[in-house]
């Protein structure tokens, strides 16, 4: 009987190896892989059409780039390269448009879930906190009955607009995305998935918004600036946001300390989520991109030298916590998009980039109902001239060429790691 036990154990382990083994490189155009599918979590950098409904779809938008029928997100390029099924968004919808938008004729759509689709990334998603840029959570909080510090609905809407473009994005947090996937697949990975994760930029944005709101209130206290400071602190996710209702000279440094703690917490949360909701559930190939240098985006540049420096420090705080947390984890490949993006900015010609500071999408084009936003930006609403090799579509998102550069760098690292 003992012999049998050994034989069974050996057979079982052989099966596991066969089931989880990577593939070798082929000579075809695609990589010959053992991957069965791509599973993507994250934010707009990986979103392939969560909000591609209603007016967004009607104008030919849907992805955070210069949209066109051929414009692809980097996750789509990787899926094609690895010859796994074409990804589709696990959820679609724009169900929380503000009255100001709907009255202007902007049409949304009810939320729909697609339990067989494996791209869970949504524009604006944060790691854990629901209060994301342009999110329904922000809007509902302000427009609902609990406008912090008093005020009217109209003031709330204007505060929502200043806290982020009021669009009502679902922006499901990454932790929820991961849990939804587990629900969809019955609680476990097959170990044949290539999992991609990029998240954290929206945590940096909301924390920057919080700092800015507090700084504005300190510089010129008024009902609206104080309301903005309390809301900014709330949306950043800081503890005791009401302390900013009575701003003092030290409030800005208090806010900055809270912001650094918050982005580090976001990175820590992401590490924990990757460990408990991805790796512990059987995923064996998880590629994580860190945050590109947000201070080098048109948005970062627009903040001025001091604001850009703060942005860079917050980005680095997130990245270093992420790197430390993922260090040595088997099955995780951390790809340094931060350094790579800086290299692209420093050597645009080398990367075939013609512009690394100007958004390709026009902020005034009538063809874009959300002027300047890449979500509804198409070839019909770019600025004049050839923008095909610009790095940025809007103030933070890459053009299709920018996404191709991300895909190239990702595949390089995947291949070098033997994940091919």
């Amino acid at each position, binding site marked *: 009987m003992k012999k049998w036990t050994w034989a069974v154990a050996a057979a079982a382990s052989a099966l596991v190896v066969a089931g989880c083994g990577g593939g070798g*490189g*082929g*000579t*075809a*155009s*695609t*990589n*010959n892989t053992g991957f069965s599918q791509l599973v993507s979590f994250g934010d707009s950098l990986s979103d392939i059409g969560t909000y591609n409904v209603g007016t967004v779809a009607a104008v030919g938008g849907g992805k955070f780039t210069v949209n066109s029928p051929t414009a*692809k997100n980097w996750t*789509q*390029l*990787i*899926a*094609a*390269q690895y010859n796994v099924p074409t990804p589709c968004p696990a959820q679609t919808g724009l169900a929380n448009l503000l009255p100001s938008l709907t009255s202007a004729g902007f049409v949304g759509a009810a939320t729909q879930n697609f339990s067989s689709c494996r791209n869970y990334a949504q524009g604006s998603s944060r790691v854990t906190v629901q209060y994301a840029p342009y999110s329904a959570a922000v809007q509902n909080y302000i427009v609902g009955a609990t406008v912090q510090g008093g005020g009217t609905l109209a003031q709330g809407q204007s505060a929502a607009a200043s806290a982020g473009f009021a669009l009502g994005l679902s922006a499901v947090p990454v932790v929820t995305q991961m849990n939804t996937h587990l629900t969809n697949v019955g609680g476990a990975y097959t170990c044949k998935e290539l999992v991609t994760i990029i998240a954290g930029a929206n945590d940096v944005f909301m924390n920057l918004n919080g700092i800015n709101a507090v700084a504005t209130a300190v510089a010129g206290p008024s009902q609206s600036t104080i309301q903005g400071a309390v809301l900014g602190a709330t949306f950043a996710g800081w503890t005791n946001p009401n302390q900013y209702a009575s701003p003092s000279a030290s409030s800005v440094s208090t806010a900055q300390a809270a912001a650094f703690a918050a982005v580090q917490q976001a990175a820590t949360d992401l590490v924990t989520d990757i460990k408990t909701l991805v790796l512990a559930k059987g995923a064996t190939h998880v590629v994580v991109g860190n945050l590109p240098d947000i201070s080098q985006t048109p948005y970062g540049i627009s903040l001025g030298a001091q604001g850009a420096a703060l942005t860079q420090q917050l980005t680095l705080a997130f990245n270093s916590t992420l790197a430390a947390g993922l260090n040595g984890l088997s099955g995780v490949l951390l790809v340094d998009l931060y350094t790579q993006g800086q*290299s692209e900015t420093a*050597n645009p*010609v*080398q*990367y*075939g*980039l013609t512009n690394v500071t100007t958004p390709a999408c026009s902020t005034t084009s009538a063809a874009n109902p959300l002027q300047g936003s890449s979500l509804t930006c198409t070839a019909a609403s770019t600025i004049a001239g050839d923008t095909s090799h610009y790095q940025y579509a809007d103030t933070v998102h890459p053009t299709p060429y920018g996404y*191709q*550069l991300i*895909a*190239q*760098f*990702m*595949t*390089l690292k*995947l*291949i*070098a790691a033997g994940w*091919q």
Partner: protein
Amino acid sequence: MKTPYSILAAAALLTTAGAAMAQQAGSLSASIGFTNLSPSVTSGNLTAPSLPNTQATVNSNSQPTGAVNYMVTNNIAISVPLGLGFKHNVSGAGAIAGVGTIATTKALPITLLGQYRFMAPDAQFRPYVGAGVTYAKFYDTNGTGVLTALTNPGGPATTLSFQNKLVPTIQLGAIINFNAKWYLDANYTKTFLSTTGTLSTGQTLNMKLNPSTITIGIGYKF
């Protein structure tokens, strides 16, 4: 200091082993053996758009080869090495080191060498020097999935080709005559070859290959 004596002794032994070796004017000989072709790669950088310092290297390859030699005079020979081509893997280097094979290619060096053979035609040991030209022909060049992944992920397969070149070759070698008909030929060549790989994406990669060969063959004089 013992070594020079033993070499001398071996040489003496060889020179006394036989007589009437003949590679005099007008004689034709042929050999078959093995050649190891080993590139000494200095890679340029793949042109934009690319990661800075995207480079490549090429591995060595051994193939059975032959050579046909004609003695123009007692000391001057014309030698034509023959082979069916060498298979090489082109691998990532520099910024893309570790990605493995990005392409495979076959190289056929078509070489014509003039040699000066020292010593008398019937000497047992005839060192020689040679110089000539090589036409390096690259064929069956195929990009791998890795090449596509690095240059155009998710897009059409990236193909590439290497430029064929006519370049100089120099040679050092020696003949050891066993008897009037059979001999051993060992030689080393260095070819000063640079080529340019051109990708279907329009990018180019200059590579100094400067291959050296070591050939050992058994020959027969007709």
